[in-house]
C-alpha cells in the first residue's frame, strides 16, 4: 500500500504524539525540583537555578506521604485480590453456559453495569457505610472498588476464557478431572497471561481511584489520591506549586514506571474483548 507521507514524516508524527503524552509529566517533574514559591517559565524550569529537594521533604514530612502510600497499597492489593477471586470463576462459568439466552442476558448485564455512573453507587454506599460503621475503613473502600471493577474484569476475563479450545477441557474430563479441577488445573494456567493483565489493570485502576475513596475513606483510610487533595488544599501549603508538583510526582511516577515495565500486559488486557480474530 502506498503510505501516507514518507517514513520520516510518519515518525515525526509519532514522536510528536509521544511528546504530548509525556511532556506534561516531565514539566511537572522539573517543577517539583524547583523553589516552590513562584511559577516558573519552561526555560526557567530547564535551568538549574533554584534546584531543591525541599518540596519532596515537605511531601514526606507534612504531607505524610508514607501513611497514604501504605493505605493506597493495602487498598489496591486487597481490591485486586477480591476482584480476581470473584470475577475469574464468574467469567469462566459464563463461557460454560450452554443456553445462549442465559449467556447473552448475563453478558448484557455485565456490560451495562460497566456504564454505571459512579456517583450513583457512591452516595448510597456513603449512607450505608455510615450506618454500619464502615465509613473511614479500608474495607469500605475495597468493597466500593469491587463494585467499580467487577464489570470490566469479568468482561476482560470472558475474552481470555473464550479463547480456550473445548477439546483441551474435554480431554481432561475424560481423564477424570472434576469440574473444579478442570477450572483450577487446566483452564486457569492457560489464561495466566490474562490473569496477569487483569491483576495489573485492577491494581492500576484502584491505585488511581479518587471518587469512592474521597466519599468513603475518613482520614485513617485515605489513599494517596485523597491525601494529596487534602494536603495541597491545606492552609499551610497554600499556593506552593512546587510542593503540589513533588507530591503529584510521588504519586504518578511510580505507577507510570510500573506501567512501562509491564506495558505488554496492559496492551493485551485492554484490547482483549474488543478485538477478535
Amino acid at each position: 500500500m502506498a503510505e501516507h507521507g514518507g517514513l520520516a514524516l510518519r515518525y515525526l508524527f509519532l514522536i510528536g504524539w509521544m511528546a504530548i503524552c509525556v511532556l506534561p509529566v516531565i514539566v511537572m517533574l522539573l517543577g517539583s525540583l524547583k523553589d516552590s514559591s513562584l511559577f516558573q517559565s519552561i526555560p526557567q524550569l530547564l535551568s538549574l537555578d533554584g534546584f531543591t529537594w525541599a518540596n519532596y521533604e515537605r511531601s514526606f514530612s507534612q504531607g505524610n506521604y508514607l501513611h497514604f502510600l501504605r493505605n493506597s497499597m493495602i487498598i489496591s492489593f486487597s481490591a485486586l485480590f477480591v476482584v480476581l477471586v470473584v470475577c475469574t470463576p464468574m467469567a469462566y462459568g459464563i463461557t460454560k453456559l450452554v443456553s445462549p439466552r442465559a449467556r447473552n442476558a448475563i453478558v448484557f448485564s455485565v456490560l451495562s453495569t460497566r456504564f454505571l455512573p459512579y456517583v450513583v453507587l457512591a452516595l448510597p454506599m456513603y449512607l450505608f457505610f455510615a450506618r454500619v460503621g464502615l465509613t473511614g475503613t479500608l474495607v469500605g473502600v475495597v468493597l466500593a472498588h469491587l463494585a467499580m471493577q467487577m464489570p470490566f474484569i469479568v468482561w476482560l476475563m470472558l475474552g481470555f476464557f473464550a479463547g480456550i479450545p473445548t477439546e483441551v477441557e474435554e480431554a481432561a474430563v475424560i481423564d477424570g478431572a472434576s469440574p473444579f479441577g478442570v477450572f483450577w488445573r487446566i483452564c486457569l494456567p492457560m489464561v495466566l497471561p490474562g490473569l496477569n493483565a487483569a491483576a495489573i489493570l485492577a491494581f492500576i485502576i484502584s491505585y488511581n481511584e479518587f471518587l469512592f475513596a474521597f466519599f468513603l475513606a475518613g482520614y485513617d483510610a485515605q489513599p494517596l489520591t485523597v491525601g494529596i487533595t487534602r494536603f495541597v488544599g491545606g492552609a499551610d501549603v497554600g499556593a506552593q506549586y512546587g510542593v503540589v508538583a513533588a507530591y503529584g510526582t510521588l504519586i504518578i511516577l511510580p505507577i507510570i514506571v510500573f506501567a512501562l515495565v509491564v506495558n505488554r500486559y496492559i496492551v493485551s488486557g485492554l484490547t482483549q474483548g474488543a478485538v477478535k480474530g
Partner: protein
Amino acid sequence: MSSRRHFNPWAFILPGVIAGGVVLGVPVVQAFWISLHRLRMYRMHDQVFVGLDNYARLLQDPLFHLSVRSTLVFSVGCTILSVIAGLAVASVMSTRGIRGTSAARFFMAFYLVPFVATQVVVGMMGRLYVWEPEYGLVNFVLGLFGADGPMWLISQDTAMWATIVTNAWRLTPLAVLIFYAALATVPEELLESAEVDGAGGWRALALIKLPLIRYHIGFVALIQLTSAFREFDTVFALTGGGPGRTTNVLSLLVYNEGISNSDMGVANAISFTMLIIVSILSLVYMRVARLGDLGN
C-alpha cells in the same frame, strides 16, 4: 460430554452474581429509594417520603439544566476528540515500515502514559503546568509560533475546551490500542488489490480500513462516551466545576448537593437521572451502531 451432566456453570457464576447484587444492585435500588425522600445528612432520622418532588425541583432548577448541558458537551467533545486522535495515531502506527517494529512497541509503551496517570494528579498538573496562561506548556508552545494563548481555565469561554482536551488526553490511549489491534485484522491482500486499483494511502484508509473497523470505532466511542459522562476526578481537580459553573458536570453537581450541601434526596435524584440518561444514550447507541451482539 456425558460427564458434563455433573457440571453446573452456575456454581461458578453464582458467587459473582451475589457479590454484584450486593455491591452494585443494592446501591442502585437505594439511590432510587433515597431520591424519593427528603433526607438531609446529620438529620438522618428525619426521612420523609416526597415522591417525585426532588425530580420536579430539578426540572425547574437552572443549575441542573446547565449541568446537563455541560455534561453532554463534555462527553461528546471527549468522545469525538479521543476517537479522532486514536484513529490518527493508530493509522500511522499501522503503516508498513512501522507496524511490528521495535520502534512501534517503544512508542506504544509511552502512549499508555495518559491512561495510567492518576486522574487527580492529571487535573492538578493541568491546572499548574499545562493550562496556566502565563507559564503553562500550552501557551508556551503557542508562544513559539508567535500566538498569544487565551486564559484557558480562568476564562468562561475556554475552560470547557481545556477540560475536554485534558480528559480526551487521558481517554485516547484506549482508542489507540483498540484501533491499532483492529487495523491488524484488515487482510493485507485486500489492501494490495486496492492498491493495484489505485486506492492507496488516504483512500485505502477511508474506503477500506475505516469501514472494516467500524464496529470497533462504535465500541470505543461508546466506552469513551459513558466514561466521560461519569467523569469526576479529572474535572474536580482541574477546575472544581469553575470558572463560574461552566464545567460543573453532573457528577460534580451530585457532590455539591449531596456532600457539600448535605441534601441527599436531591443528590440521589440527580445521580439517578444520570443513570437514566446514560442508559438511554447507550441503548439507543447500541441499537444504532448494532453493538447488540457484543461479547458473543
